[in-house]
């Protein structure tokens, strides 16, 4: 018997094989080597569980583990407390300037958290603007450094996730359900608690889990504003730098613990969601109630306060970047000294950032369009698995990915340590899911019959993909590329581990400047980053119909 052959044999089979090889090399090998090394003795290389024993017994590690969980949960909680009310006000009331608020939320979302951390120091730190102003009138501010600062930054950074997801879900609730509850004698509060909240719970919890995973993975914030408070990502980094030269056994063991926490969080969320899947039929759309008088003041006050709070870091860095400096000291008045300094001291950081990000994005655009075709169009075990595998980069913190790359690609012909290639590849694999997600959502709306028509007319599968599929999914490719560009150019945690003097990027330079107290330079570079990021957001808004949905 002849075996049945697939309709599109060679080309897509090759691509599928290539995709598997690529993911195996760039994703699983580094993670596996981190995994293996975590069971090795640092000196002898023998198998041992000692590393894990240390983490779960020594104060130093246990404190960091505790701190990580605390900032993760508190950051998530803070983000919920800001995001859910904002979403509720925006979806149920006629708020003026809605698009301003949602734009601010998106901008807050895409700006890197370390800029937030450092902006809050500029305001509330020992020598911060607000601290000094309050001191002048005799009020002593509590310190912003430590746990408090980290949680503040995380809450303000991640609330937009929860806001955008919850608003979407709230708008999707059939109004008849709430009307029915009212008709059955439920008070407004009871209705919210018993009907609305349970229905948006899946969305809130998804947003919350994303906030949690990103909070525990974040390196810049605790490093900048944490002072004595260490988290797993900061100790992984310091362990890695102190173990430099030898095997980074403790650093990778910490990494494994971080991956485990992220996976656990995701599993719990999946478990919770599995029990709450609601079929919904939209017959009766939500209406936004007009507000007036005191209620209007309250609603507008709450929404604008939350959205503006998220934007404060951006305002602060832009403002600070235009303050005249004399060396590291702000000399009062306005001037372009900071820009002059970055132009003379850090032109390569700016150039590197753009070059690396653009290279990574070019790779992402090509690979993600091929991958999304496999995921969407090919019905096979592998394409189903790919969909799942592409979740992995979301779960692996940047510090971990970088350590994985350094421990993997470090000898022979595949020695990439210290090269720009390594930075580009790390960013590529970390941001690939953004590209795939955006392209595949567009591809799902292209009817397969259009491609079949081309095939029936004699066009080979590869040519059909180029001439028919790619033009049709171009909007998705562009939006995906912009999204990955935003995250690529703001990448700090992994780059900080693998950079050398010739591959410094803007986020690294900002981090180093903040550590050195060079706030002017940091502000000017942050402004460049913020403006390029803002530009991309603007383009995404222009090019895409469902604007905010791209960002969550």
């Amino acid at each position, binding site marked *: 018997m002849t075996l*049945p*052959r697939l*309709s599109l044999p060679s080309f897509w089979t090759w691509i599928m094989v290539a995709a598997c090889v690529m993911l195996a090399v760039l994703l699983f090998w580094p993670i596996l080597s981190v995994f293996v090394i975590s069971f090795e003795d640092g000196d002898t290389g023998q198998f041992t569980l000692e590393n894990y024993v240390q983490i779960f017994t020594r104060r130093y590690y246990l404190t960091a583990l505790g701190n990580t969980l605390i900032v993760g949960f508190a950051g998530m909680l803070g983000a919920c407390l800001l995001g859910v009310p904002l979403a509720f006000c925006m979806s149920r009331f006629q708020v003026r300037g809605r698009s301003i608020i949602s734009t601010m939320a998106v901008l807050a979302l895409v700006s890197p958290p370390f800029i937030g951390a450092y902006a809050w120091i500029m305001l509330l730190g020992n020598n911060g603007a607000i601290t000094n102003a309050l001191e002048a009138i005799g009020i002593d501010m509590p310190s912003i450094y430590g746990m408090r600062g980290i949680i503040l930054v995380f809450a303000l950074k991640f609330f937009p996730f929860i806001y955008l997801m919850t608003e979407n879900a709230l708008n999707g609730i059939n109004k008849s359900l709430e009307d029915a509850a009212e008709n059955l004698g439920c008070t407004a509060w009871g209705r919210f608690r018993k009907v609305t909240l349970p229905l948006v719970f899946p969305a809130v919890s998804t947003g919350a889990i994303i906030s949690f995973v990103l909070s525990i993975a974040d390196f810049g914030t605790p490093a900048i504003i944490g002072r004595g408070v260490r988290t797993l990502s900061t100790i992984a980094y310091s362990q890695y730098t102190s173990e430099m030269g030898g095997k980074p056994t403790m650093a990778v063991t910490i990494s494994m613990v971080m991956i485990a926490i992220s996976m656990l969080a995701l599993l719990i969320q999946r478990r919770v969601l599995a029990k709450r899947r609601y079929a919904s039929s939209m017959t009766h759309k939500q209406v936004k109630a007009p507000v007036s008088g005191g209620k209007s003041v309250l609603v507008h006050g709450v929404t604008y306060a939350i959205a503006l709070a998220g934007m404060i870091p951006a305002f602060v860095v832009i403002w600070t970047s235009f303050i005249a400096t004399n060396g590291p000291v702000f000399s009062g008045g306005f001037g372009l000294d900071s820009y002059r300094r970055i132009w003379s001291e850090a032109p390569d950081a700016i150039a590197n950032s753009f070059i690396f990000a653009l290279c990574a994005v070019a790779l992402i655009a090509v690979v993600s369009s091929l991958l999304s075709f496999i995921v969407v169009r090919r019905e096979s075990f592998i394409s189903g698995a790919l969909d799942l595998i592409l979740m992995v980069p979301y779960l692996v913190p940047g510090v971990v990915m970088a350590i994985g790359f350094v421990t993997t690609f470090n000898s022979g012909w595949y020695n990439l340590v210290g090269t720009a290639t390594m930075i580009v590849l790390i960013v590529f694999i970390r941001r690939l899911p953004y590209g795939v997600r955006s392209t595949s959502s567009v591809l799902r709306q292209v009817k397969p*019959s*259009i491609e079949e*028509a081309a*095939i*029936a007319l*004699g066009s080979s599968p590869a040519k*059909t993909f180029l001439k028919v599929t790619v033009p049709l999914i171009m909007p998705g490719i562009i939006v995906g590329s912009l999204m990955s560009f935003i995250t690529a150019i703001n990448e700090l945690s992994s780059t900080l581990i693998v950079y050398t003097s010739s591959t410094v990027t803007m986020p690294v330079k900002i981090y180093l400047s903040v550590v050195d107290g060079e706030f002017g330079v940091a502000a000017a570079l942050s402004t460049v980053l913020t403006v390029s990021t803002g530009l991309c957001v603007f383009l995404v808004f222009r090019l895409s119909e469902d604007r905010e949905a791209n960002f969550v």
Partner: protein
Amino acid sequence: MADVHLKSVRKSYGSVLALSEINIQIPSGDFFTLLGPSGCGKTTLLRAIAGFHAHDSGEIVVNGTDIGRLPAHKRNVGMVFQDYAVFPHVSVRDNVSFGLKERKVPKAEITRRVDEILDKVQLRPFAERMPHALSGGQQQRVGLARALVVQPTLLLMDEPLSNLDAKLRVDLRRELRSVQQSMNMTTVYVTHDQEEALAMSDTVCVMYGGVIQQAAAPWEIYHRPANRFVAAFVGSNNFLPIVDGTVAGVTVPLPADVPAKGAELALRPENLAIVTGTVPDGMVGLPATVDQVAFTGREISVALHLSDGQEVQAICEPDEALLSLPHGSAAQLCFDPAKAQVFEADVTGRRLA
């Protein structure tokens, strides 16, 4: 132009058998229609011929060579899709010339052939338009022109008219058929609209449950259905159980080999007459009670039940006397035994007479 021969084609999706032992012979230039209820495997068979999915076993022989294992883009089989599948990002002209460019036809000839085919489907004035500025019917003509212009060996169409409104469907049906005839193109056409199938085809092939029930000319299919399924699916039919040579207690002249049990008499509604007086010579009369009489313009449709409670539909010439029959009145349901058929009682039961 090509003759097509499918030899024992089988296809299953996991444990679902979608096609079992399909054997069909389609002569060159034939308009061959696959007709059947939803889920019977029409699309599956068409896509196997086009090469969009692999069949499990069997041969698809076109002009003497088995194309069943060639990749889809090498089969030179034209396809017209239910959802038009017009490339939305290029103009009508570029849509139609797509396949010619693929075949590296010289530029001048492309222009000539595209113009020619656009004339044929009456789309010449729309050549430079983008597809979103066309109506559904016009888009489907683009789909047809695009498939025909490359002169495929075989044209496949999967319910190409089902997204169009009723009037346009009839117009485009004629047009499709005349284009097909003028090019003498072997065509496999899928529909679940029996009127469409009967009106257009040289051969109608009725499918059910992945099995071919009968493939024959429309007249043959309608008047000499091979089994009970075809008799029930094409046109309408009343099936009355035969018990010991009688139907509803009345003795009916039947061929000798009809068994005492397990057979049914099939009566087309249009072959029934309703009389209130005596039964005409040569006809058999079954006593019945009138339930409802409905006038639909061209004809009158009457619902009755027989003495044993079985419901029967009849279609009669418009007749005012018939229309005024009150509900519940007694009548004789008459039929010509020569026009009655006998089937085994199974869904796909054999025809016995």
